[in-house]
């Protein structure tokens, strides 16, 4: 119990200080708003072009495709709020040696590295995404509470998968100091998740399912929300989340033994 309180209090202090630091640069809010609505408008335009030829895209209706786009935007917003500000900093910690300070704190270092900062600039994307998902899914038929819960669990699973992959790439910087490009490639590949996986050619579909789990990130939760998901895919997604998180944890514990610290 004391440990939960300790972690809760630490998280509160992490987030209140990082929000205060971010608010030193209020212009970011404007830039982020413009970029979110610019991106959404661009994606909607492309979707409309794709649907102009017929009424379905890889078996997905216009509303279904909008739910996928909404989920992608939601993940992107959460990435901007939590994953990007924390995980992109790990490489920096390794290069400059400030990881030493993190490792010497009486708190789990993976927890520190993954939650130390939060940025409010993903909030516009999260707001827009929730609006889009609610609007498009209700037009496709209002989902039952059970489906809603399942979809929520699958969104959480997709977040865990995304987090774990990113964390693993960042943790590899302990061995190969320059991995910034790899994390950038990961983030760019995930852009593929803004359209349903079945819209891609079969070869890419395999890659997006088994190599880069783009399918689990947006398509699987969207299918659940629209009531057309299968239990196998849902189970697979939850299992993938557990495996990915477990893997990231093991790798981190292992990586610390190899850490030699930047020399002064």
């Amino acid at each position, binding site marked *: 119990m004391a440990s939960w309180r*300790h972690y809760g209090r630490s998280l509160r202090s992490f987030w209140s*200080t990082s929000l205060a630091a971010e608010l030193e640069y209020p212009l970011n809010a404007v830039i982020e708003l413009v970029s979110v609505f610019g991106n959404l408008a661009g994606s909607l335009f492309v979707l409309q072009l794709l649907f102009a030829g017929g009424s379905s895209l890889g078996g997905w209706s216009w509303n279904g495709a909008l739910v996928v786009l909404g989920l992608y935007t939601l993940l992107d917003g959460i990435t901007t709020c939590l994953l990007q500000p924390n995980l992109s900093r790990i490489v920096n910690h390794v290069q400059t040696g400030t990881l030493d300070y993190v490792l*010497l*704190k009486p708190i789990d270092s993976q927890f520190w590295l993954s939650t130390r900062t939060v940025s409010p600039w993903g909030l516009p994307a999260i707001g827009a995404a929730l609006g889009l998902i609610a609007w498009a899914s209700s037009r496709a038929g209002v989902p039952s509470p059970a489906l809603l819960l399942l979809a929520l669990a699958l969104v959480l699973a997709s977040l865990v998968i995304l987090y774990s992959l990113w964390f693993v790439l960042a943790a590899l910087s302990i061995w190969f100091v320059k991995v910034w490009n790899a994390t950038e490639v990961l983030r760019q590949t995930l852009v593929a998740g803004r359209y349903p996986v079945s819209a891609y050619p079969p070869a890419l579909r395999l890659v997006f399912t088994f190599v880069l789990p783009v399918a689990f990130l947006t398509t699987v939760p969207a299918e659940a929300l629209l009531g057309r998901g299968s239990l196998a895919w849902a189970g697979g997604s939850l299992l993938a989340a557990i495996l990915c998180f477990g893997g990231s944890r093991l790798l981190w514990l292992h990586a610390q*033994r190899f850490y030699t610290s930047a020399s002064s």
Partner: protein
Amino acid sequence: MTIIQARNLSKSYRISEKQPGLAGSLRHLVRRVHRDVVAVDQISFSIEPGEFVGFLGPNGAGKTTTLKMLTGLIHPSGGELEVAGHQPWRRQARFLRQITLVMGNRQQLIWDLPALDSLQVNAAVYGLEPVAAARRIRELAEMLELGPELQRPVRKLSLGQRMKAELLAALLHSPSVLFLDEPTLGLDVNARVRVRDFLADYNRQTGATVLLTSHDMGDITALCPRVLLIHEGQLFHDGSLALLTQRLAPCRQVRLELADLHPSEAFAGFGQIEEHHGHLLRLLVPRDQLTERVAALLERFSVLDLEVGDPPIEDLIGVLFRSRDAAARGDSP
């Protein structure tokens, strides 16, 4: 009771060697050549609670590696190590609450925010209750002569103020063992003296054990009755500073600015040449022969400027090791 105990502590690294240039890089890609480098070679020492110990050695001697093993940042390759009753590399929370590390060249304070915000993060992470943390901050701020500075963004503080705030952050949880790696790096004379005074007071008042590395001999002489001198990974001296100075003191540094250019050989008989660039010359001269050598230099060469002082610790140690190596080879000094 001993608070730090190291027995035959060793650390070796495996490094891959690469020839320079593109061809070397390509060869390196195909066939990697590894080499084991011994950074710390079976050193043993023990430190009692409350001691203030200086940790000396030239760059690359193994000081930082040892310090990192003592704090638990890296695994020893061999030997035994116990700090405050724990094996450091396990980094258990109970151990981490008892130690602190301050590095002069790296900071833990948040750049854009007042130091007070970073202190609150540390208070939460170390599990200090808000009231106790506030009291502790007040006490330390008073000792460090910090006041309104704590409410200014860290980026707007001077280097000296920043280091004092770093010390405050590092000592917030009342650690009993302090590892200080070049805490006065880059500070001006006044700031350095203030940091030194604070460390001496802190050690006296709290009975905390301090291990200090510094390139500034002033820090060591002002603070450390005992010094450990490490060279090429081996412990060379463990004892009082006075004893070390006796071993090292025979030399003084003579800096000359010459009117004319001369080859280095021209100064061979005057002392150990440490540096010779154009008109500037730096020599180490045995203390008992200082006046006659300086007089001879002034007589022989046209000298624009002359300065006699204590040589940097690195040079002293270098002379010591050169004479030791020469003795080992059986040469006359």
